[in-house]
């Protein structure tokens, strides 16, 4: 099967930056795969999405070294801030969602069908006639996701897509991801919301200073203490969604007690748990 994305030893430096945002990243994604990218702020997760979708360096600028093959016929990306992703030229949500297919010059009936399908997928039919300028951040983000889905991308990059969503809407968005993947879409998610992303991802990459330090199943590679502390901060009572104690018992038996104590939990990818998360 032709990979939707193949990166081999990719190094990317933003324009004017003195150090690379990505260093020697190698990655292959196939149809139906859901890969999450975890890492501290500045680790390079958002940059990886820009490179994966072909926007960097084409529009972003900078320099790319290594080999990149984008096999997907169409790539879509959703950023965290929905208001910057609106065209500002459409007076209804329906037209905003239809903007992409219309830009591709598809026949009107096809454009309308793609827009209504995407609107139904996101559960925003009740907003279809509303002016996007008068929607809340959460509603807007769902409109933006629908607008991207209407294009029928084969590779969808989600850059912290739930940043503007309330918990229920974030859950609904992540719940949609497996069904998109089941239709053959390849999905790449960069988010600090590790807990939600890990529920749907089939693969997780952990980035540190632009380098992939772990790559595998989410339960195998994610920093378990981070999942535990995030779940606790979100008010989730144990057992945590990923069953952290069981996970710890399996992969790091001597760290089991620490997962429940956020006070000495090391940051992601550092300290005694690092060995547990490495592939």
């Amino acid at each position, binding site marked *: 099967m032709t990979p939707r994305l193949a990166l081999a030893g990719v190094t990317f430096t933003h324009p004017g930056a003195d150090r690379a945002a990505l260093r020697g990243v190698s990655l292959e994604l196939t149809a139906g795969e859901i890969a999450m990218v975890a890492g501290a702020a500045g680790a390079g997760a958002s940059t990886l999405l820009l490179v994966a979708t072909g926007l960097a360096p084409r529009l972003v600028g900078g320099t790319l070294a290594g080999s990149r093959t984008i096999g997907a016929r169409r790539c879509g990306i959703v*950023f965290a801030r929905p208001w910057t992703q609106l065209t500002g*030229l459409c007076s209804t949500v329906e037209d905003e969602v239809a903007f992409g297919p219309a830009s591709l010059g598809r026949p009107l009936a096809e454009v309308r069908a793609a827009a209504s399908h995407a609107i139904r997928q996101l559960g925003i039919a009740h907003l279809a006639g509303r002016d996007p300028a008068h929607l809340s951040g959460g509603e807007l983000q769902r409109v933006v996701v629908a607008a991207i889905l209407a294009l029928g991308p084969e590779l969808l990059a989600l850059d912290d897509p739930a940043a503007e969503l309330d918990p229920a809407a974030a859950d609904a968005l992540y719940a949609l991801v497996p069904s998109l993947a089941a239709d053959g879409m390849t999905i790449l998610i960069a988010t600090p919301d590790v807990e939600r992303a890990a529920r749907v991802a089939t693969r997780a990459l952990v980035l540190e200073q632009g380098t992939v330090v772990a790559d595998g199943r989410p339960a195998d590679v994610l920093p378990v203490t981070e999942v535990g502390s995030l779940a606790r901060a979100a008010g989730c009572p144990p057992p945590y969604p990923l069953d952290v104690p069981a996970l710890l018992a399996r992969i790091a038996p001597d760290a089991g007690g620490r997962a429940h104590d956020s006070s000495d939990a090391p940051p992601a990818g550092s300290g005694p748990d690092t060995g547990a998360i490495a592939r």
Partner: protein
Amino acid sequence: MIGYVAGRSPLHRAHPYTTLTLAGAVLFAAFAMTEPATVWLLVLAGAALAATGGVLRPSARTALAVSLPIWALLFVLYGLMGADPRVAVGPLSLSAPGIARALVLGGRVTAIVLGFLTALATTSPHRLVEAMTARGVPFGRTFLLASTLTVLPRMQERAARILEAQQCRGLRLGGSVPARLRALGPLALPLIFGALAEVDEQVLALDVRGAATGGRRTPLDPPPDTRPQQALRWGLLLLVAAAYAWKFWRMRA
């Protein structure tokens, strides 16, 4: 008020090319007029246009806010320092030809601003995009024009948000002139840098959504363009051309 105001007036329902042609006609006609009376007739026409669009009050207010400083400058330049003969107005001795010149120039500015604001307030950017798309205008040009129409209201909105945020952080806007000037930095810099950052992201978002493909877009809901409106636009063009012909004929005569 600078920007589109939703409404159902005849101007709102008109084809976007018609409202833009009306504003363009006011602009070009203003430079064809050389007499104070005709220029101020044009100002009245601009006001009538704004009234037809239901936006007279906000348009006139903004037009006056823009024009008044220019009138004051023109009054000083031409009225006080203009050529003879002079007329006495109270304690002042004013230049009669200078006052006439100031009335022409000031009237032009007012008429143009009024026409432009009316077109801005009654032309939906969405309908304009659809109209241009239906005519096969490349998206780059369409976006450029539509963005120009929406940039001022967006900047106003952003400036208001930044102002609130900076005041919450203790920024004081009152006080002496140097203090007010110092307050400009915390307002202007986030406004400019924030706008640039958002433009960067919007370029990426538009590219992903096929805006840069260069092919012909599919119009979703193009506004109807009737024969009377087309006739009106051609009529306005001919009228403006006639006004210039009259002006140049008089200059030669």
